[in-house]
């Protein structure tokens, strides 16, 4: 699994987890609304690395912007995103499995 480096920490995505889910789990402050690529509220700046999309999202994306709700991380990436005041959330083991 690819390593995600944010402004404040780095972590790995769990199997089946979207980047947005992963950022929320690790206590990052990230906005969301539709969670399916059309509202664009979760838009983040990609500093290094690449992501892909199964289907081009409807929301407008500038150069080096990504939508964590619907992108697929294909290599280690670095993004601009801060950890929030609340800590990490417990892993919902019903939903995801740790990729070990």
């Amino acid at each position: 699994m690819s390593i995600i480096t944010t402004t404040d920490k780095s972590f790995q995505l769990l199997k089946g987890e979207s980047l947005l889910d992963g950022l929320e789990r690790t206590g990052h402050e990230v906005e969301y609304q539709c969670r399916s690529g059309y509202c664009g509220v979760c838009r983040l700046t990609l500093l290094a690395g690449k992501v892909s999309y199964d289907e081009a999202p409807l929301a407008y994306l500038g150069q080096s912007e990504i939508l964590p709700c619907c992108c697929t991380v294909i290599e280690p990436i670095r993004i601009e995103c801060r950890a929030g005041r609340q800590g990490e959330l417990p892993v919902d083991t019903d939903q995801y499995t740790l990729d070990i």
Partner: protein
Amino acid sequence: MSYSIFPKIDNNQLKEPMFFGQPVNVARYDQQKYPIFEKLIEKQLSFFWRPEEVDISQDRIDYQRLPEHEKHIFISNLKYQTLLDSIQGRSPNVAFLPLVSLPELETWIETWAFSETIHSRSYTHIIRNIVNDPSLIFDDIVRNENIRARASDISSFYDDLIHDTMLYSQLGPGEHVINGKTYNVDLYQLKKKLYLCLMSVNILEAIRFYVSFACSFAFAERKLMEGNAKIIRLIARDEALHLTSTQHMLNIMRSGQDDPEFAKVAQELNQECHDMFAQAAQQEKQWAEYLFRDGSMIGLNKDILSQYVEYITNIRMAAVGLKPAFEGAKHNPIPWINTWLASDTVQVAPQEVELSSYLVGQIDSEVSADDLSGFEL
């Protein structure tokens, strides 16, 4: 070129700009200059809903029990939203259709405005349910000073554009004397008016709706007026899509890829657009003050709402390439609103209206042979 509803000039639609080219003749979608608008149409159509699908009978009982200052908050927001959608259900068609030159964009604008008319009809649905005489509420929209102030803030950009477009499409550019008054119609100035108008619509759908949304959801957090909140969720889902569309239009325009002159327009108007956002945020904060003049509601007051307005204003500004107006607003003071705005959990079945969270307690009861493979006897 004077306007025609079906210009018979054989043109290549793929080479027309979004606006101010030859008016659309054949409505064809087999080829598109900007496929994004076709995708937005499809998404909007897939969102189709009708207010009557949502059962709001419990809201009538809830409303009767609200304290007076909360009734004021609830009703004032409905008036404001009715105003916003009265404008939006009509003006994209009136203002933009005479200027548009691409079939997919033309149809998107019509689909967009149509969905706003559903919102308008849903306010009648809500208001008819909670009060005996809806006229008291509707009549006040044009009489109440606070609402009237909002109306002129929003409609002025549309009126400005529509006025000059009428002169342009009938008489073309140049100096015209009508009834003794001289009008100077200039295409570049008209482009500026269109850009400002689109920015103002973007602001309307990006910020102005959200104060009312926050109040509706704050009621529903307390299990009050849940039918209303259900309708507002559907409206918020549509508005998110409309917002995406104006962001696309503005960004395509300011990139200059469509019409190089619009890159210049955008650059010249950069500060004005920035100020428009800041001013709209200010007006919404004033609105919050009016809402809470007789008292706050649990979980929401003027200060929290003002912080939220500043926070989302920054996000929306970034999406159209503007620098944030409020440096200090970096955190969402009401993160619970996102759960309500999240549309993947929107349900429309009438029997599910009372408790939208009732699926939380459900257990997946399906068991297959594979599930037991880990057991050994």
